[in-house]
């Protein structure tokens, strides 16, 4: 993760400042709020919420390391017993349930999306909605959907084919959420041009 850090000029690249900690905390809270907003239940197993919007947004806005940490913190709050997972679930029980794979995929997807956004050509993160959209799509395809299906296979004893059938229900919603994510992330980068390529607070 350190190779993707955005401050090659300083030697203390691994140190996160207080503003970084506050951003990590703020986005963990934002994912909480996104996840507990009223859900649309399509399959009966995994309700659709803005949860993944918040997860991928954390990566696209904060970059790989802080995005990863923000989503990890969100998971920690949920595991500790706050009812912040979709459907108001909480506690370590969700790790035993069939949807655990999706949760495990969240921080990794945020990290990959954030990494890809930082690799975009200069200025693209603030202007190019389709490119940011693609970053989010790759992040969620590689980690959320793959690990989500793996979880269904391991914990619900489905075959990969059946897991794929469950998983594809979410694709359309995912594309829509990714469009929203790209629109919001680019707007936030225009409002705060130094979020990704930041200078250390003095």
């Amino acid at each position: 993760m350190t190779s993707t850090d955005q401050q090659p000029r300083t030697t203390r690249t691994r140190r996160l400042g207080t503003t970084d900690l506050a951003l990590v905390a703020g986005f963990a809270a934002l994912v909480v709020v996104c996840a507990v907003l009223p859900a649309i239940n399509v399959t009966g197993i995994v309700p659709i919420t803005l949860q993944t919007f918040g997860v991928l947004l954390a990566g696209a806005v904060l970059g790989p390391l802080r995005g990863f940490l923000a989503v990890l913190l969100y998971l920690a709050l949920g595991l500790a017993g706050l009812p912040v997972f979709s459907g108001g679930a909480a506690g370590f029980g969700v790790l035993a349930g069939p949807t655990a794979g999706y949760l495990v995929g969240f921080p990794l997807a945020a990290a990959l999306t954030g990494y890809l956004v930082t690799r975009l050509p200069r200025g693209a993160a603030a202007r190019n909605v389709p490119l940011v959209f693609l970053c989010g799509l790759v992040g969620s395809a590689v980690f959320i959907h793959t690990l989500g299906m793996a979880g269904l296979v391991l914990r619900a004893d489905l075959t990969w084919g059946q897991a794929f059938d469950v998983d594809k229900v979410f694709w359309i919603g995912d594309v829509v959420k990714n469009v929203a994510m790209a629109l919001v992330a680019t707007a936030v980068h225009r409002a705060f041009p130094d979020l990704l390529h930041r200078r250390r607070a003095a």
Partner: protein
Amino acid sequence: MSLLLGTHRPGTTWLHRLPAGAKLLGLVLLGLVVVLVRGPVSAVVALVVAVGLGAYAGLTAREGLRTLRGLLLVAVLLGGFQVWNNGWARAVESVGDLLALVVLATVLTLTTPVDEVLDALVRALRPLRRLGVDPDRVALTISLALRAIPTTVAIAEETRDAALARGLERSPRARLVPLVVRVVSHARATGDALHARGVGDD
């Protein structure tokens, strides 16, 4: 606000008084045993033990059913599917294992306040200090996130009202962009305030 109280039920049993770290360790060990020991008999034994612990901790059937509501549907579907494909033994094993793990985890969640679980998690991070993880800063970030949840809910409501007043309640851009921009600027103000007081920087 109920979101922040979590799902903890106060009580005085031995399970309530046991330190959170010991309960977490016990959950991990029991979870490993449940997953590693194959066969329908062990699954039934595990489920009986889990329900017994739940009853001892003062978990009423009504409370238990409410917590497991979402999962019971999955368990019924999964059970039917397994009987159809792999026979009774396999069905009892996978459904029994799943329910036992979730009940055990629910007992932990119900008998342990959220802050104690978080404290135990932070203590568990101590060995990672030499990798650059500072448990104190992790604890600071957790408390910042807990503080940020009600703030973010309030910001989300204000943003929704503002979009509503402009007749833009259906526009994701009008509802989400101001929310995220305000989350970022709130986090930056918090970071600056902490920095000014010398908290979290060293």
